[in-house]
Each structure stands twice: as C-alpha cells, then as structure tokens.
C-alpha cells in the first residue's frame, strides 16, 4: 500500500514528525516500510501561468510560440504541444527551474533559455509525464481555471512529496487503505485521527437488490444511484493521488471509486445504470458453464464456486474481482449505480487465483475488508461524484446488513504480562492500549473482556490480544532473559558421525560443495541406479524437472565449471539427500540398517525415499601444476581411500562383515575396467569409478574424471541402533616380524577374497598388511595377476620365530588354494 504523505496527514496529524521519524515509528511498530518514493521530486521553480497568446512558429510546423503571464510579467517560449488555448492555466518551468530527471534516474534537469529554430524559448510548459504525474505526454498539463496564478505548482499539487510504501501483513487487510494506516499510526502514537462519517441516506431508489442467491458469499450489498453525471477527466489532485498509489486514472467516475477504495479500503464498482436491464441487480453463485466478458475484454468461464452479479437478463460483474464490459461506465454515461459489497474472503481468493485475475479489489476482499464499511464508502463516493462529476444524489437500495464488532475475547491480564515476560503490566494499562486500537474493553480485576472493532477480524484469541499489547507496549521494552537449560541437548551419535564423514572427505583433499538437487531426465547415476524419479509439478526449468536420484550429476556440473576456469584439477564432495520414489531398488540397500531413513506423512504414508549420501568427484591433476610430483592425477583409489576411511570410522571396528568390498561392475557412462560397486553385508551401498572416455568427452571434461557415491544411512542407522564405544587393544611389546607373500590368481578373483585368505592364514598373529605390488606378465599367463602383500606379524606373549613365519605362509597358501590362487615363493 502506497501512502502519499499529504493524504495521511488529512487523517492523522503527524506533522510534528520528520519523514524519517515517521518511517521509524511505522516500521518499528508493525507497519513495515518497504520503500519511500517521491514521484515528481526535483520539481522547483515550476509556476502556474495563463496563456496570453500563441501563434505558429515561423520556422517549424509543429511548434507554437507562446506568451504566458503570472499576472504581471509576460514571458515568451516555444512549445511542441497543441492541446491548449489562450486563457488556459498551464505549468511553466521557468529559466533556472528544475524538473525531475527524465527517464527515472539521475539529477533533476535544469532549464536554460534555449534557441529553437531562431526563437528563444524561456523555459517550457510541462506535461504530466515530465513532472511524473502520470504517463500522459500527448500534451501539456492544463490546470483548472480557478487555479491561482504565479504560484509554485507544488502549492497547488504536492508534486514530489514522499509516498511511503508499506508492506501489508497477510492478516491485516485493514491496512490496505489510508484510513487504516492513519488509524494504526494514531494508535501507535496515542493520538487522535479523523474518521470520515458521511451522512447515510434512507431514500430508496427504484433499483431492486437481492442477495438471497449468494448465501454464505455476500453479507451486505449496498447501492446508490447518482444521476446527471458528466463523465470526463478527473481533476489533477485526484489523478495525482491515484498515480502516487500506482493506479491509472480512467475517468472521474471510475477514479472516484478507486480513490474511495484507497481512502477507506472498501472496493466499489460503478455501473452505467442505463445498461443494467430491468433496474435490478441480483447477487448469486454462478452456474457452471456461465461466462462473462470482464472489463479487460477477456471471456471468463465460471464455476458454481464463483460469485456473480446479474441484472434482469445476464451477468454484469464477477463479484469482488472485476466488473463486466457490458455495463462499464463510458463517455456517454449519465446515470451511475454505485455498488459496495462485503464478500466472503475465501471465495474471492479462490476465484481470483483460479482465473489468475488479481485486481485491487480482489486483493482487498481476500484479505477481508471492514464488514461495517460498505455504506460509508458508497456514500463518500456518491458525494464526490456530485462534487466532481456534476451529479445529483439518487436513492439507495441494499440487502444484507453491515457487520458489527468482533466476538468478545476474555483475557487474563496477569497471563498477558507473564507471557510477555514482564514483571507487571496493569490491566488498566493493557486496556488503554487495546482501546487505542478501537477495541471496547471491560476491566474486572485482572480479567479483560475485549471486543475488537469490526475491522479487526484477526483478533480472536488471547494470544492475538497479547500481541497487540506487546506491540503498543513496545517490543523494545520487553526484557531479555535466557530460559533455563531444559534438556540434556547435544548432537546424537549419528549427527556426530555425520561430521566425521565430512572430516574424512576434507582430509582426502576434497572441498565441500552444495548444489541444487534438480536435474533433467538424463542424468548420470552412481549408487544403485534406477529409472525411478521424483518429479516436480512446477519445476524451475524443464532441465530441472526432477529431484536428483544421485549426487554425481550435480558434482560433474561443478567440475565442469571449474574446468571452464582452466583449473588443472579439482576435487569436491557433497553430503546431501538423493531422491527416489518410495519402493525404489535403493531401499534393498537400506532395509537391514534400521528405519531412520523412512519418512512418512501424518497418515503414515511413505514420502519419497531420500537417503543421505556422500558424493565425490575429482578431475585432472591431484596436486595442481606443482613442481613436485608433476603430473599426478586423481584416481579411483583416491575416492576409495575416503570411502574406506568413512566406513572404518563409522562401522564397528572388528567386524569383518562391515568391510567395504569392491566388486567390478559395468555401468552406463563408466569406464568398464575401472568401476566397482561397494558392498557391505551383501548389499550395494556405493559405487566408485572413472568416467567412460566417451562420457567425459561428451561433458567436455579432460580425463581422468572419477566419481563415487556412498549411502550413509546404513552406517548412520547402525550407529543409532548400537552406538558402542570402540574398545582399546593391548599394545604388543614383543618385536614384530615382517614377511612378504605373493598370491597369483585370476583377475576375476577380487582382492577381498585373497585378503580373507591372508587374514585367516595369519590368524591372530596378523597386525597389519599392505599391498605393495601388482604384477601381470607373460610368465603368469593370460588373465592372471600376482599381488604382493607385506604382513606384519606380532604375538602378544612371545617372540616370533622363522617357524611361525613358515606356518603362516603354509596356512595362507592352503586358503589361497581353495580360492584358485597359488602362493608364489
């Protein structure tokens, strides 16, 4: 809601406050000031003049040479407009005057005497647009004949005054008008404000009004006839106020209805009564299939949930939203039927949303107008039409009844004080605040009976009353206390573990990123790929129409942006949710690990499956273009190192079933020889791999590009179920022994199996082991490889001997043999 300062001052005297102070008062007390505009700012030295004479420019067809006067002095100038004549009062920007910056921005424009084709022009005559009083640039402003001569235009019209734009809160429909905002400012400051009380007339008109067919939709319907009006342009003061408030002037009749709406908050409609058939208006619910051509020329298909106004034969208005084209007030209109009604907010909101038709009227009706305000607004508009359009007052016709004050709310003043954290706020003081807002208050001890005024439909519960008391008491006067510590608090085991996951990725050299989880249909996936998608009904873009089923797609886009920055290499990770439809195959990987990953709605229905995963991606040089370790690139092993560490930190320490197994797999978009599914306890919980050269090429990414993804829910879920602290192991003091073994096996035998042979063979003596070589060659034969492993053996109770070593080697050889592997000495 835009509030011209002069208009506000008509209703509440805040002239003792500077504009800045007024804005502070408003914004600190519930009237959030969004912006202050000042259309016409910079207008200085523009004076009212009368045209003494004019003639054609000797050397230009489209220009006139004009002489104007302020009553004493005559000045000659050149003007391009032709909408004026001798005797007209015009706005003259004199030499040395300034007018607002043209085009909206910058410093005001200063006028100089200027020669135009041989004639010196001493200033210019201003159009409305030049003074930011409207869009009209077809001619200059012609002011009313009774305008005083030789005075500054700003004395006639408040050109350049501040217009304060207030963001109206959703539950304060009463703030959508000057009166409402003035009332609020007055309540905040504890001063009086003016309430217009035009005299209501009971003279009946011959118009029939019937709202019986609008049960539940219309509470009060008020009309008044104004006869003998002359439709024409509104006076400048009225046009200026509409322009300041962002409404385009149309003609005096329509402008008056808009002015009253802005002033009192009650939207009005003006019918050309001569086009209303049968001098009858009926308000009813529409019938499905009925149509109406609205003022904007569009044909609207109606439903039974829409309210309409009809005459004897047809629909003439879409109630509370927009009038019909057939009964529009136009140039020849002489008899006007003014209408003001109280509509059901929800009905107007639904119709307006459905038709995507939001008008100044619907905006107000859907936020609730004062149910007692229709008569006042109609009367005020009728009086203005008499004054501004030469009309004569006709009779009234109405149906329904004005609304009254709200239901009384019983409030315990002691509770209010406690609720706000105040030691004491006497009931009388609270009652005083509430009365300022227009409430009627009965005080009985600490008990308050608060009857809200008709325009405050939002005051229905004690908490609502407490808010009003707090607001007028001043939120800044509320003390600051810290509540006592109520609960043990802290992070859960799984929440702590989530931080450990991040640490593992960071320690591996990966930067954390946060991406948007929206992707198109075609997307690279990592863990448990699926065709299932969680789609969006109103996506931001067509290539972002589904929720991402895997983090790697977005990570690769981040990699691409960094490649675009000519970075030699990049490594990133993200810890976020992925999205799959309920029942997706990924649930097979989650089922055995608690149910913390299942989310349901209040009725117990499953929401989309949205487990947390850790996604990794790296590309190019691992150490940048450093002079040490030149050319070292990121590899799948770097990702595996992170995932291994995550599992080692989160999984039970001595349970081999939690070892992250790697199974070679072939997946879309991935290098067939460099991709492995990661399993624990027999289910896939992750994937690592290098992008297929074609995939990398298609994404314009220099190789190598490696990606990986690990489901975290199994690890975190397990921790929630059995958060057992890790137990220490005694540190062996006896010297350790190191032995090397080489196991030859077909490449199809995963190392995990060979490791099992080593673990079982070495038994309790095994302290650690490392792979230190992998060899493939002709001697081994096709499809064979030899893996060399160094074992560190140690016994808690004795010094190991060569005999122990020999036994271990024999045992490993036996186990390896069972797997089809042989031990090479």
């Amino acid at each position, binding site marked *: 809601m835009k509030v011209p300062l002069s208009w506000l001052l008509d209703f509440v005297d805040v002239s003792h406050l500077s504009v800045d102070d007024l804005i502070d008062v408003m914004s600190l007390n519930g009237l959030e000031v969004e912006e202050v505009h000042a259309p016409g700012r910079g207008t200085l030295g523009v004076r009212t003049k009368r045209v003494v004479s004019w003639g054609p420019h000797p050397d230009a067809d489209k220009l006139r040479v004009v002489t104007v006067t302020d009553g004493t002095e005559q000045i000659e100038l050149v003007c391009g407009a032709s909408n004026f004549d001798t005797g007209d009062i015009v706005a003259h920007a004199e030499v040395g005057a300034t007018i607002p910056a043209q085009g909206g921005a910058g410093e005001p424009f200063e006028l100089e005497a200027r020669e135009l084709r041989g004639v010196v022009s001493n200033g210019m005559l201003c159009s409305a647009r030049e003074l930011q009083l409207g869009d009209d640039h077809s001619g200059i402003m012609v002011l009313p004949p009774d305008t005083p001569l030789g005075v500054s235009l700003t004395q006639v019209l408040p050109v350049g005054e501040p217009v304060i734009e207030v963001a109206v809160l959703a539950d304060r429909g009463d703030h959508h008008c000057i009166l409402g905002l003035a009332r609020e400012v007055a309540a905040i400051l504890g001063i009086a404000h003016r309430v217009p009380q035009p005299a209501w007339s009971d003279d009946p008109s011959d118009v029939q009004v019937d709202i019986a067919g609008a049960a539940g939709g219309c509470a009060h319907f008020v009309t008044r006839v104004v006869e003998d009006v002359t439709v024409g342009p509104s006076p400048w003061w009225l046009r200026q106020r509409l322009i300041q408030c962002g409404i385009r002037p149309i003609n005096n009749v329509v402008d008056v209805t808009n002015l009253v709406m802005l002033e009192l908050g009650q939207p009005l409609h003006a019918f050309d009564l001569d086009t209303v058939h049968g001098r009858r208006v009926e308000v009813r619910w529409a019938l499905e299939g009925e149509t109406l051509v609205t003022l904007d020329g569009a044909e609207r298909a109606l439903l039974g949930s829409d309210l309409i106004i009809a005459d004897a034969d047809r629909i003439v208005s879409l109630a509370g939203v927009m009038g019909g084209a057939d009964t529009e007030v136009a140039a020849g209109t002489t008899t006007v039927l003014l209408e003001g009604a109280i509509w059901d907010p*929800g009905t107007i909101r639904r119709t307006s949303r459905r038709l995507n038709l939001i008008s100044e009227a619907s905006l107000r009706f859907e936020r609730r107008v004062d149910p007692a305000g229709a008569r006042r607004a109609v009367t005020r508009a009728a009086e203005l039409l008499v004054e501004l359009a030469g009309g004569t007052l006709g009779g009234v016709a109405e149906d329904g009844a004005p609304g009254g004050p709200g239901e009384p709310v019983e409030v315990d003043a002691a509770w209010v004080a406690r609720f706000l954290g105040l030691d004491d706020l006497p009931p009388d003081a609270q009652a005083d605040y509430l009365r300022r807002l227009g409430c009627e208050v009965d005080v009985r001890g600490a008990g308050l009976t608060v009857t809200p005024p008709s325009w405050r439909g939002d005051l229905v519960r004690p*908490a609502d009353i407490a808010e009003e008391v707090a607001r007028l008491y001043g939120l800044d006067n509320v003390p600051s206390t810290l509540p006592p510590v109520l*609960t043990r608090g802290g*992070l859960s085991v799984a929440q702590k573990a989530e931080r450990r996951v991040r640490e593992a990725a960071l320690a591996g050299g990966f*930067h*954390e990123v946060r991406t948007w989880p929206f992707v198109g249909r075609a997307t690279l996936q990592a863990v448990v790929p699926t065709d299932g998608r969680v789609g*969006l009904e109103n996506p931001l873009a067509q290539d972002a129409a589904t929720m991402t089923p895997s983090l790697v797609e977005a990570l690769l886009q981040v990699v691409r942006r960094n490649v675009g*920055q000519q970075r030699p290499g990049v490594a990133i990770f993200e810890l976020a949710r992925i999205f799959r439809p309920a029942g997706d195959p990924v649930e097979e990987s989650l089922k055995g690990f608690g149910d913390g990953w299942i989310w349901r709605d209040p009725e117990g229905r499953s*929401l*989309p499956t949205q487990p947390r995963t850790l996604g990794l991606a790296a590309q190019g040089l691992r150490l940048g273009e450093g002079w040490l370790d030149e050319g070292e690139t990121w590899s799948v092993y770097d990702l595996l190192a992170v995932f291994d560490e995550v599992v080692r930190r989160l999984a039970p320490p001595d349970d081999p079933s939690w070892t992250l197994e790697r199974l070679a797999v072939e997946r879309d978009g991935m290098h067939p020889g460099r991709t492995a599914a990661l399993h624990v306890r027999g289910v896939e919980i992750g994937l690592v791999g290098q992008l297929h050269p074609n995939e990398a090429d298609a994404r314009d990414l220099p190789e190598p590009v490696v990606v990986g993804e690990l489901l975290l829910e199994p690890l975190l879920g397990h921790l929630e179920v059995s958060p057992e602290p890790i137990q220490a192991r005694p540190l062996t003091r006896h010297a350790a022994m190191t032995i090397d073994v080489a196991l030859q096996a077909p490449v199809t035998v995963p190392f995990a199996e060979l490791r099992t042979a080593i673990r079982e063979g070495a038994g309790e003596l095994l302290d650690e082991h490392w792979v230190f070589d992998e060899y493939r060659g002709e001697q081994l034969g096709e499809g064979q490889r030899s893996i060399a492993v160094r074992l560190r053996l140690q016994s808690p109770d004795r010094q190991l001997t060569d005999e122990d070593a020999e036994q271990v080697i024999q045992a490993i050889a036996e186990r390896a043999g069972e797997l089809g592997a042989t031990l090479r000495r």
Partner: protein
Amino acid sequence: MSEKTTTAVDRVRTEALGAMEQARTLDELDQVRVRFTGRKSELAGIQKSMGSLDPEQRKQVGQAVNGLRQEFDAAFEARHDALARAVLGERLEAERLDLSLPPRRVRPGRPHLITQVLDEIVDAFIGLGYSVADGPEAEAGAYNFDMMNIPADHPARQEMDTIYVSTDDDVVLRTHTSPVQARVMTTQTPPIAVVVPGRVFRADSVDATHSPVFHQVEGLLIDEGVTLADLRGTLLAMAQALFGPDREIRLRPSMFPFTEPSVETDVSCGFCARDGAACRACSGTGWIEILGAGMVDPDVLDACGIDHQRYSGFAFGVGAERVAMLRHGVRDTRDLYEGDARFLARF
C-alpha cells in the same frame, strides 16, 4: 738379517703412510689397511719370520713392528675420520633443498561456508542445552502447511512460492524448516528444545539475493511458562554468538501464521559507523534484518497435540545464506552454489 728386517719395517711404514694419504675414499682406505696390515701383507710375513730370529733381534724387530702398527692405527683412524667427514659433507651438500620454493600442495579440503555457518549456529544452541532434529526435504504438505497453521486457502501459502512434488499425494519440497517443528512436537513431550538446520526450497527466480535452494536453522523451545522475554534473550545470545558480543538486537512486529506474537529481528550493524551514511549492509539505518521469530501460535500447539493452556514456547528461523552474506561479505548467493574452487578454498 735383523738389520735388513728393520729396514723393511721402515720401508713398509713409508709406503703404508704414503698409501693412506693417497686413499681418496673409505673403500680405498680399507684396501690400504688390508694391503699393509692384513694376513697376507708384508708386515704379516715379517711377523711370521720373527720365529727364526734370535731373541735379541726378535725383540728389536718386535718393537719395530709394534711401533709401526700403533703408528699405522693412529694414522688410519685420523685418515678415516677425515674421509668420513668429507663424505658426510658431500652428502649434506648434495642434499641441499631450496626451501624458498613452494611446498607440495596436498591440502585438506574446506567445509562449505554454509556448513560452517550452520555448525556455528547449531553449536551455539547445543551450548544452551538444545538438541538437533531433522526431517525430510520432500515433505508432507500436512507438516509443511496445515500443522503450521497455514490452511489451503491462506494467503501465506501462495506467498511461499512452493515447489510441488505431487499435489495429489500432498507432497512438496519443504518451504521452510518449520515442518520439523510439527514432527518434533507430535513425537516428543515438553520440555522440548531443538534446532533444525536444513535445506529449503522456493520457486524463486535466481538473483544475487534469491536462490530457489537455501538453508535455515529453525529453533523451537516449548515448556511451561516460556515468555517473549525468553525469546528475546535467546535471539540476543544467538546474534552475539554469530556477529560479536557487542551487538544488540531489535524486535519489530510482524506476521507469521505459526507464531503469535510474531517478530522480525534486526541486529545492530557492525559494518558502519551507524551515522546514517551509506552502508552496504544496513543502508545507513544501523540495523540489519536477520530472522523471523515469535511465540508458537496456540493453534500450532493444538494441532501438534500440545496443550496450549499449559505450555508455551517460541520458534525462530534464521537464514544461513543471509548470515554468510552479512558476516563474510558474500555479495551473490550464486557463489555459494556454483562450486568454484577459488570460493570453496577461501573459507
């Protein structure tokens, strides 16, 4: 014979000491030792032949040989030390590094700025006895709206620019972290003190200060006798934890469907002199809006099965992006999501 032998010893001395001087490496020096004092050396031969000498001569020759051995050992020792020193010196010289050059750049990664902000807010509240709650991002409309007192035709629902997953199933991308309030209140009994860090979604067009994906930390405290002053004190504690102990806060009336009273919270500007001059952060007003808060609406308590006659509470929601922008001078939210490594490595 003994004359001749003594002369031989002298000759060996001269040759041995000379050879030792000639030795350039420890290996050569060792060869000299073997050549002149080993089992097959001339000196060994002389000692062997001593048995055939008479006692007097044997004594003379023995003294000469022993003298030579002592002399040889001393000289060997000295030469060995000198050579060993030289070898070590050469090695140290050869191992000289130019430490003015940059080191290997294996750096750990950096947590995302938003993660750091979220953790910092969460940790501040953990210090006040709060625990951390979580909820889904694809959320039931019932939690996101209805239980938060935003019925279907409420204007606030339109203003939230919701991204819908399924209107039929009433699933949305949560527009705020508040639905977790409902999840907590329907499953726990007071006292309740939780914070909810999380990602939220709006169908917003992207610009320097708007992103369709952003992060909030929701706070919720419910118990008997919780007051507006408790809210104010808690918000002050958070503002000071995030922005510095000298900051103040200011509450302004506002409207949220799930709180009553509702307040917007401003923190005093720390970026300017607060003298009305142009300031990028506060536009010269001295105050910066950081979050919305309020006392939990009695209807929300009722909808979540908590007796509003007995319990009261407060809730707040702070935007992590806004805090990051204010505290770290981030000018464009897009920088937070593009993943440019220069940005990531900065924080």
